[in-house]
């Protein structure tokens, strides 16, 4: 099976620019700089690449929107604030192939008309931060970053900005606030980032994995790329498998592989008996059907979301009530606290689930959790609150018995 993102990942010292160039690195940049930016956008659109951070928005379209904005300056931001439980895919790229990201970002900057890019990285990624900064310095020395890159008249520079430990800062509008030095709270949308993002300027914000597809698309063409993976969503995906699985880790596989294939052929099978999986991390709905194809559309059709591809496997020994509670503990801790449904809803749901965990649940709370989940989806400001109840409500819908068993016995 052909790899795009992790193709060279095992080459020693790939984070050294010389090794990266020897393997064909920065060739895509050279090619892109000779293309009209609009042509690059066409190529990306035709590749049908969509965002790998979770929202699956078409990358080419996002870049086109940003390029078309009249307001200057524009910014390109790489969202490397990978922090959801079960998500550790971007880290592999950041650590082992930083130049792939840097090259991608220069292409992106050229395409949208930005001269400045930021990599907003999770603060705990110490080694990755160090390597990125070293790689950026190398790229500057070699003339890939800075003024008049490769005599193209295009100038671009990059800055690494470290997050301070809040998961919510991975939400794009919250990330802008944080990058501007403000409190990590989301903004209302619209306006969308492509109109008004960092410093209220047009901003394209892309996930690490999304960006790292760019060199291959430029080098090999959109047609080549669009034939890889699923017709629904072309390309490969980095899947992070964790939970009750024999071989947890990051696997690059074509979009559209089934959950069963991923678990059995790559993850070494579930530990114990498979019960359910969270296909897109703790913000996704539980899936029980192993034959669901892992591409954005198919997972959505099955009632969940692929998100960033963090597949968390749950076996039959685990209480689904515990799983739901665990997810809500996370969101309660990570809510920014700005909007009422999320700030208050997460902690109340956490308390209600806590009662079920302790065998003190109330019958009426089972349906009440579903209602709370609907209101939080309906009324929360950002994705965090909107998705916080997905795991819990799907747990109720798929495994209601387990909740009923945890209802407090009236005689007890």
């Amino acid at each position, binding site marked *: 099976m052909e790899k795009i993102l992790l193709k060279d990942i095992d080459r020693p010292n790939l984070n050294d620019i010389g090794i990266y160039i020897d393997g064909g690195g920065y060739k895509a940049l050279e090619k892109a700089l000779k293309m009209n930016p609009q042509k690059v956008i066409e190529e990306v659109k035709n590749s049908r690449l969509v965002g790998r951070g979770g929202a699956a928005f078409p990358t080419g379209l996002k870049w086109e929107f940003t390029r078309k904005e009249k307001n200057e300056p524009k910014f390109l931001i790489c969202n490397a604030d990978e922090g959801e439980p079960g998500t550790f895919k971007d880290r592999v790229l950041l650590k082992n192939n930083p130049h792939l990201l840097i090259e991608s970002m220069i292409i992106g900057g050229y395409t949208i008309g930005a001269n400045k890019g930021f990599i907003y990285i999770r603060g705990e990624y110490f080694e990755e931060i160090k390597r990125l900064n070293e790689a950026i310095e190398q790229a500057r020395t070699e003339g890939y970053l800075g003024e008049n890159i490769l005599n193209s008249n295009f100038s671009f520079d990059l800055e690494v900005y470290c997050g301070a430990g809040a998961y919510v800062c991975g939400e794009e509008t919250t990330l802008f606030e944080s990058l501007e030095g403000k409190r990590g709270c989301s903004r209302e949308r619209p306006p969308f980032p492509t109109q008004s993002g960092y410093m209220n300027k047009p901003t394209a914000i892309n996930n690490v994995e999304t960006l790292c597809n760019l060199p291959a698309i430029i080098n090999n063409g959109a047609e080549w790329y669009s034939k890889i993976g699923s017709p629904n969503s072309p390309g490969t995906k980095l899947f992070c498998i964790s939970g009750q699985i024999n071989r947890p880790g990051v696997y690059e596989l074509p979009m559209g592989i089934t959950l069963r294939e991923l678990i059995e052929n790559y993850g070494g099978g579930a530990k114990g008996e498979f019960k359910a999986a969270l296909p897109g991390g703790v913000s996704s709905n539980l899936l029980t059907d192993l034959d669901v194809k892992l591409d954005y559309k198919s997972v959505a059709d099955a009632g969940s979301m692929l998100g960033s591809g963090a597949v968390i496997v749950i076996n039959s020994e685990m209480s689904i009530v515990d799983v739901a509670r665990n997810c809500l503990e996370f969101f*309660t801790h990570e809510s920014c606290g700005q909007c009422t449904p999320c700030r*208050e809803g997460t902690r109340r749901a956490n*308390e209600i689930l806590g009662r079920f965990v302790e065998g003190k649940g109330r019958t009426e709370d089972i349906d*009440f959790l579903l*209602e709370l989940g609907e*209101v939080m989806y309906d*009324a929360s400001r950002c994705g965090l609150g909107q998705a916080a109840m997905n795991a819990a409500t799907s747990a109720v819908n798929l495994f209601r018995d387990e909740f009923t068993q945890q209802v407090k016995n009236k005689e007890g």
Partner: protein
Amino acid sequence: MVTLTINGEQVTVSEGTTIMEAAKKAYINISHLCYLEELEPYGACRVCVVEVEGENRLIPSCIREVREGMVVYTHSLRVRRARRMIIELLLANHPADCFTCERNQICELLKLAYELGVEEVKFDGEKPSFGLDETSPSIIRDPNKCILCGRCIRVCHDVQTVRVIGFVNRGSETVVATVLDNGLGNVECTNCGQCIHACPVGAIKEKSCVDEVWASLADPEKHVVVQEAPAIRAALGEEFGLPEGTLVAGKMHSALKRLGFDAVFDTNFTADLTIMEEGSELVKKIKEGGVLPLITSCSPGWIKFMEHFYPDLMDNVSTCKSPQQMFGPLAKTYYAEKAGVDAAKIVSVSVMPCTAKKFEALRPEMRDSGYQDVDYVLTTRELARMIKEAGIDFAGLPDEMAEPLMGMYTGAGTIFGATGGVMEAALRTAYKLVTGKELEDIDIKPVRGMDGVKAATVNVNGLEVKVAVAHGLGNARKLLDEVRAGTSPYHFIEIMTCPGGCVGGGGQPISFDMALRGTRGGVLYNEDKALPYRKSHENPSVKKIYEDYLEKPLGKKSHHLLHTKYTKRERI
């Protein structure tokens, strides 16, 4: 223009209008909590959500702008369910002490819970147990009641530009706090109390001294005197169901007598006195080439703001004490002498539209009588509660006068309570001081009204005197930055801490409605017009106090009792 459909009704509004504003055209007032008309929309409480066709989720109507063809439902089942649950979520850990809460009867959260049909709170949240912030002599914050709507923060940051409170911590641990949790008394807080008006619940209130005043009134050994600021008479009636814009000067004096004060005076008298002193100071500075522009000093929030943020402009600020603090030492010297009362037995109470006055009364400089000059400062709200507690039928009271000795006042004194009023009053007298003639048209309209910064030019004996007025500290900065940069064209600047001037002070009946503040200001301008004397220098009691006691403006005694100095304060 944009046309949209709200609950089936077509509405046409200008581009950039929010759904909430547009809904008013369809006769719908959408419920809201974190939204406050005068502030930037925040969109965080989510009470104002509505259903918009084509949108997956509900949309906050306070912040989302309309677009052509939008189809909106403002009270569908889905919307109402969300609103109810949001209120339930807010109530889950809200202290249920409505009986004893400051905002009993006027709490926005309580009102919404009723209006939105919340009959049961299906969550059991633990009640918070934060300590109160009682570090300030003016304002108490109770984080337990806070619902995190951010209105106080937006006022403090965006309107007043003081920026001493903000959100701290994350998620359900979020609280509104001062830097390093120092408390309002230990940061640059100006004590303006605009946060109190912004708060929809009882999380911020004045530090009350109602009980201390009751105790003094009950003490036969004490001789309790009272003064009331100009702005009180323009707003106190609101607390008793009188129409907005009702002048209640006479009922106010009448009520105070009935509460048992031994002598009821009026701060308007010392407002006139302030004009004599400040007008003379202005004339002296212009004639002798002193530091200009001269900036007014009546507003204690502005004074503390200056001491923290613009200490370099200290020499521009008038040395005149505020009318409250001119009254204080005179009550315990001049009045004590005249009435033959032992100054040690006098308890001097003031009724102010202001929370910063509580701080001002405690300043160490304010003891020129040999005692603390003003003992207790009541806000308009505190006075209203005392009147209610005493069962006084305020609306039915006859009009009575304050004692003339320190209670007679002119129209110039009364307009102190509205933005621009001090300026107008000062010009009426300064003209006379310079030219020896009376100003013909004493209505100086360009300095009236609710514009944030106002300017005017008055020809005084051939000199074009340029004046400017700012109210609200954010507006004040605009004028102050010019002074600091040396580009200010003005001779005289009036600064009031609160939007609208004292009629919008932090101690007034709860409201952040700027139109109401304008109405209250209008009350004072109307009173001015109707009074027999309209210039401070015409006030017979003012003439008398100079003849009998003070001698002359800026004289030795005036200097001792009526002027003060300022202190540079650190930034935290």
